[in-house]
Structures are given as structure tokens and as C-alpha cells.
């Protein structure tokens, strides 16, 4: 596992995969999506909890749950810039 990691790091750094702008941008979007997913996990479970108590909160809960999604859209802008 560790040997393959160092090998992979060598490939990435020396062969210069990440110096390719579109690859770097893709990684950026992926990380942003990961962050958004983690944020939505907490908000989503809180929203479902609130909805279970009061069904009128469905719309508010939905909006708040997808708010972190904006960060992925902003990251996606980078893809078009490079």
C-alpha cells in the first residue's frame, strides 16, 4: 500500500500529471464536491429531523440542505476558466 503510494506520488509529481491544468481543475471540483457532501450530511439529517416534527418545514429543509451545493458550482467555474 505505502510503496504504491510513493510510486503514485512520484508519477504525479515527476511525470507532471498535476501540472496539466485540466487535471488540477478536475481534482479541485472533486474536492469541492466532497466538502459539499460532508456539509449536506449534517444539514440533511437535521432537516429530516425537523420535518419529522413538522411537515411544513419540507421546503425550508430542502433549500437549506442543497445550499452547500453552490460551492460545487463555483468550483465548476474553474473548469471553464482553464
Amino acid at each position: 500500500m505505502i510503496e504504491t503510494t510513493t510510486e503514485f506520488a512520484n508519477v504525479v509529481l515527476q511525470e507532471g500529471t498535476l501540472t496539466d491544468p485540466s487535471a488540477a481543475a478536475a481534482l479541485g471540483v472533486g474536492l469541492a464536491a466532497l466538502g459539499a457532501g460532508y456539509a449536506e450530511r449534517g444539514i440533511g439529517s437535521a432537516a429530516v429531523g425537523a420535518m419529522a416534527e413538522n411537515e411544513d418545514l419540507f421546503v425550508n429543509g430542502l433549500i437549506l440542505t442543497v445550499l452547500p451545493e453552490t460551492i460545487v458550482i463555483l468550483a465548476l467555474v474553474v473548469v471553464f476558466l482553464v
Partner: protein
Amino acid sequence: MNTSGTSNPEYVNARVRARRAALFTDDEYRKLVRMSPAEIARRMEETEYEAEINALGTRHSGVDLIEYALNRNLAKHFDDLLDFSEGKVYDLIARYLRKFDAWNAKTIIRGLYVGADRDSIETDLIRAGEFSDRMISRLLDAGTIEDVVTILEGTIFGEGLTEAYTDYEETDLLVPLENAIDRGFYGHLLDDLPNTEPVQLYREFLVAEIDFRNARNALRLARSGADIDPAAYYIDGGKLFSPSELNTLVQDQEELVSHIRESSYGRELTDVLDELEDVDSMISFERGIEKVLLAYSKRLGNVYPMSIAPVISYILAKEREVENIRAIARGREAGLSQSEIESELVIL
């Protein structure tokens, strides 16, 4: 049940906050104080308590109806809490709610002691703790106190209870059994709590509760002047008294009060203690320390929103609500004046 794996504080907190918002406000208490028991029951039917009042309305009436509806509603909400919490959060909530297991075990033992029948014991239970319905019906079916002790063997109350039973057989007094159950509860309350900041504050809160309980017992003993060994009522885990200190302090109320004043609780309890010295009334002291605990838990809940703190603050607030409404109903039934009833209420 489910104490391993990930916990879900966000979900639990969202639900708890919604339920907290549904509690009675100060204004509503003020309205309730002016009502008769029947009117209170009718008012409760329009709120949270609708299902319980309707379900019990045919079998009970008056203050009994209010009291049983309150207990059943409390049990429903606290059972829900255990139901939808998972992992670490479940463990922390269950610790505190086991106090209802202790209450149920004590109620059943007392019931058997005085020879009450199964139904009347059952109506006095609060099914909010960790005991399953099956466990409770096994306990209810037990014919003798010995059987109850045997059934409780596997639970947290088991350890001390068997010893206490031999005591009970010799003296025919319930005190050793009840103390054993209380110690089982308080002994496990502080067992290996995880070491994060909100949990450490939760621990402080639990220690404060134990301390206040000891202080209250000590004050009662000091005032009654009864010749009882204070160690029999001492609960381990607090930091306010050591057992030997307690033994000397119960001799003299003034020394006891100054000991509390010099402790780390001194600042919060100044007003309460001043009042105790001026008015010399136990009631306002007991209400006062409950108010301090409630305020502390509420503050904790606001400081650490995604932890156990808001849940505990909800549990306390709900218990207070139930006790307030019960005090109002009982007070009205006994014909107390409005100001007398209000002195019994704990309102923040």
C-alpha cells in the same frame, strides 16, 4: 441497545428543539394557575397532551387524569429520544434516563411491600427509561420482592441489590433496597464518560446534580434534627461534601450553609442561600436549586449546539413542565391561593 457506531447529534437536536418549542410558556402557566383541575385538563387537550388526555379520559378524572396524562406524555417523549438517537448520543441520554428505571423499580418494590395490586402499581410507572415493556411486565408479574431482586440481577441495579435484600430481610425496612437502587443509578452515571469538551461540561452538570441532591438531603436532616445516619443517604460522585464532612455538617444548619457558600457553587447559589437564611423555608431553597440547574443546562445547550447539552436541557425543561402542571393541579384541588401555587413553580 445501540451504543456503538456513529451518532446522529444533528437529527436528535433538530427534533429536540422542535419539541422544546412546544413546551408551555410562562404566560400559559399564569393562565393555568387561575383554572380549576377540569379546566386545566380541557386546556391540555388543546395542546401536546391531547392523545393522552383522550386515551385516559374514560378511566380517570380530575387531578388523577392530569397526572397520569402528564406521566404518559413524558414517557412517550423520552422513549422517542432513546428511539431516534444512536451511538454516543444514545449512551449519554440513556445514562440520564435510567433514573426512570430506578423510579420504576422502586415503585414496584414499594407496591409489593404495601400489597398493592398489579393494576394500581402499573398506573404509577413512568415508562421512560431503558427497561423494555417485556422487562417491566416481568417485574410487575413478580409476586414477591425477592423475585424482583432476582429479575433485576442482570441490570445496573443488580450489584448492590442482592446484598441490600439480606438487610431488608433482617430489618423489614425498604430503605436499604431503595438506597441500593439509587446508588446503582448514580454509580453508573459518571462511568467512563468520553473526554470531549461538551461531555466534560455534561459531567460537571451531573456532578452538580449529585451535589445539590446531597445538599438538599443534608439540609433536610439538619432541619429535622432527626437522629439518622447521614451516610445512609450520601450519594457518591459529588465534590461538595465528603462523607465525613457531611457527618459533622448536618449537626448545624448555619455551618452547612456557609460550607455551601464557600464552595464553587457559592456564586450561583448566593441568592438562594440568602433567601433560605431570611425566610427559613425549604420550599424556596429546593425550587431555587432546581432553577439554577435548569438555567445552567439551558446555557450549556446554547453554547454547545451540536452535542448532548441541548438534549439534557430539553429533558430537564420537560420534567419541570410536568412537575409545574402537576403542582398547579394539585394546588388548585387543595384550594391553595394563587401566590402559594406560584411559589411552588419553577419558571425561568
